[in-house]
């Protein structure tokens, strides 16, 4: 019987199958950041052991760091200590660190792909649920807890039960003003915030294959928001063209050897999935969330659904939206463009193009946060910062920023933000903050209008 893409990659990394138990899975690449790693390093110290394969781990600080004045010491003492701890731990363990102000520093899921660290057929983990991003290259990539970070550091392996497999096929072409972000928000709204739990998703169909690598990353990134550990897309010419020449991508003869292998990474025609879902790209309009989990999303012109249960009503009360009503024209206080979901150069270009020659609304504070130093450099080289400046918007410095508000980029209590990040949980962007998730294009239209608007009327 044929194998799925997921089976091919997973099975090639099984060191041992424990009868009635999990698989011992070998990890090719391990990404580390400052928040979920210190206790893991402490665990190694307590056991008196060193990192087993330091060359397979790469670290960068991203969650805690300020997005202005990065040349100065971090003001928040606890954040500074955590970032310093990462430097100390990685130095002691011989792990490569792209520290603050290093030209390769950035959000861990942005730098992996842009440096060519992420490659097809790999197993990739990180103590961060958005590790799913790297599945865009046809790798098996997923988030892990700190105990598992310690396992990878100690043995380059983790123990995992093999997940079930789901195929999500979307055929057709995305409409004008509809982006990869809308595509994944649409899918999550259809299958709910828990519809993918227990599964690994493969995305197939021309709605995905026609996307750029960055668009595919946005899709795979949010697999966790429907509960799936990860999502992946079979590598193709788009993938190979993206990777070729990247800093850590294979070169010369090694490239040819790898390419031959990568071309075998697809689901066989007779492979079977535990669940198959099909959607039509033509049904998708620009999306926006109205509730407090990413499954509570809808087309931007739709009315908020009516549902009679406590959890649902609690969410609408928190968001101050009304069931049965449209959210168009709702005034917005903050716009955030950035994160591992939408902090790449194409996202910044899309936003900048849409605000070009216009002014941001006076009632809106706009934060544009590049996903990495390289994205920041590219944006400046293309003059995006100047265009933004003319619109009354500043380009900040790279980091996770207001996606989870561990640094000072916090949306104040009660204020409403339209964000291109991945989670609209209560207080996610700061205690009492309210978040509506959308694409960079929608964020641009909102920044100009100062209220929720359909981006199709702006392009």
């Amino acid at each position, binding site marked *: 019987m044929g194998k799925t893409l997921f089976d091919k990659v997973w099975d090639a990394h099984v060191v041992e199958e424990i009868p009635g138990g999990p698989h011992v899975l070998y990890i090719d690449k391990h990404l580390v950041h400052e928040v979920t790693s210190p206790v893991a390093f402490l665990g190694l110290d307590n056991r008196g052991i060193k990192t087993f394969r330091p060359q397979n781990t790469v670290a960068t600080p991203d969650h805690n760091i300020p997005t202005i004045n990065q040349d100065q010491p971090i003001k928040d003492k606890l954040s500074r200590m955590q970032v310093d701890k990462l430097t100390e731990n990685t130095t002691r363990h011989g792990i490569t660190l792209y520290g603050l102000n290093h030209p390769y520093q950035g959000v861990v899921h942005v730098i992996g792909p842009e440096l060519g660290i992420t490659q097809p057929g790999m197993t990739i983990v990180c103590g961060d649920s958005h590790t799913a991003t790297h599945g865009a290259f046809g790798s098996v990539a997923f988030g892990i*807890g700190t105990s598992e970070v310690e396992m990878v550091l100690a043995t380059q392996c983790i123990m995992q039960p093999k997940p079930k497999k789901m195929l999500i096929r979307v055929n057709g072409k995305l409409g004008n003003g509809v982006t990869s972000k809308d595509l994944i928000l649409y899918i999550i709204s259809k299958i709910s915030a828990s519809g993918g739990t227990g599964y690994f998703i493969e995305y197939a169909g021309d709605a995905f294959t026609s996307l750029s690598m960055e668009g595919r990353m946005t899709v795979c990134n949010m697999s966790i928001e429907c509960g799936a550990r990860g999502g992946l897309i079979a590598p193709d010419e788009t993938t190979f063209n993206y990777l070729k020449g990247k800093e850590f991508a294979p070169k010369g003869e090694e490239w040819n050897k790898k390419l031959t292998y990568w071309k075998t990474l697809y689901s066989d025609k007779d492979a079977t999935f535990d669940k198959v879902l099909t959607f039509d790209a033509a049904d998708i309009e620009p999306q926006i969330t109205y509730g407090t989990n990413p499954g509570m999303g809808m087309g931007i012109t739709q009315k908020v659904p009516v549902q009679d249960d406590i959890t649902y009503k609690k969410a609408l009360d928190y968001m101050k939206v009304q069931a049965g009503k449209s959210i168009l024209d709702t005034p917005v206080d903050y716009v955030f463009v950035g994160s591992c979901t939408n902090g790449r150069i194409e996202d910044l270009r899309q936003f900048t193009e849409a605000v070009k020659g216009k002014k941001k609304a006076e009632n809106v504070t706009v934060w544009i946060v590049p996903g990495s130093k390289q994205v920041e450099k590219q944006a400046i080289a293309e003059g995006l910062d100047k265009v933004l400046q003319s619109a009354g918007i500043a380009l900040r410095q790279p980091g996770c920023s207001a996606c989870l508000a561990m640094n000072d980029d916090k949306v104040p209590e009660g204020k409403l933000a339209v964000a291109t990040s991945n989670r609209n949980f209560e207080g996610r962007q700061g205690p009492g903050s309210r978040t509506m998730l959308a694409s960079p294009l929608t964020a641009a239209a909102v920044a100009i209008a100062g209220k929720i608007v359909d981006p199709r009327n702006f392009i």
Partner: protein
Amino acid sequence: MSIDKFVTIKTSCVPLAIENVDTDQIIPARFLKATERKGFGDNLFRDWRYDAANNPIASFPLNNPKYSGKILAGGKNFGSGSSREHAAWAIYDHGFKVVVSSFFADIFKNNALNNGLLPVQVSEKFLQELFIEIEKNPKVEIEVNLEKQIIQITSTGTKETFDINPYKKECMLKGYDDIDYLLNIKDKIEAYEKKVNN
């Protein structure tokens, strides 16, 4: 290094009858800045337990003196969102040994098991009955027997079996952790590396 053993428990239960309790609620991101594993229990459900002025919110179950016990029961899709193990640490550190729900997010479930916190997945019917029984009598005792994989509401006698991976069950019963296991098969891991690199 090891986890605390878990065999059986009989205790009252704190109900949290809300669905999709995400890890940002269990422990908000701004409390993840520690470099050691301690004190997370103080900030468990911080923004649901305390208002902006740090006063306890009386209506939240953890602040309600009528509820107590070492079992936390939450609605469907408990532990969704971020992979932060701090969520499992905070619940455990607060004194809970078991979390009951009709559905758990994958990463949370793994993190709980790796810390000796037992996730018990029950049917929606059982969960709703549990919430009703707790409302009738907040001191009602719940018994969880890991060896037999049974959870029982003692007042009604209603019981249900729950699933757990046999390997993980053994780890919980004996207090073993995965790292010990992996460190013991280093030779196999090295043999795998050799095979792949040839």
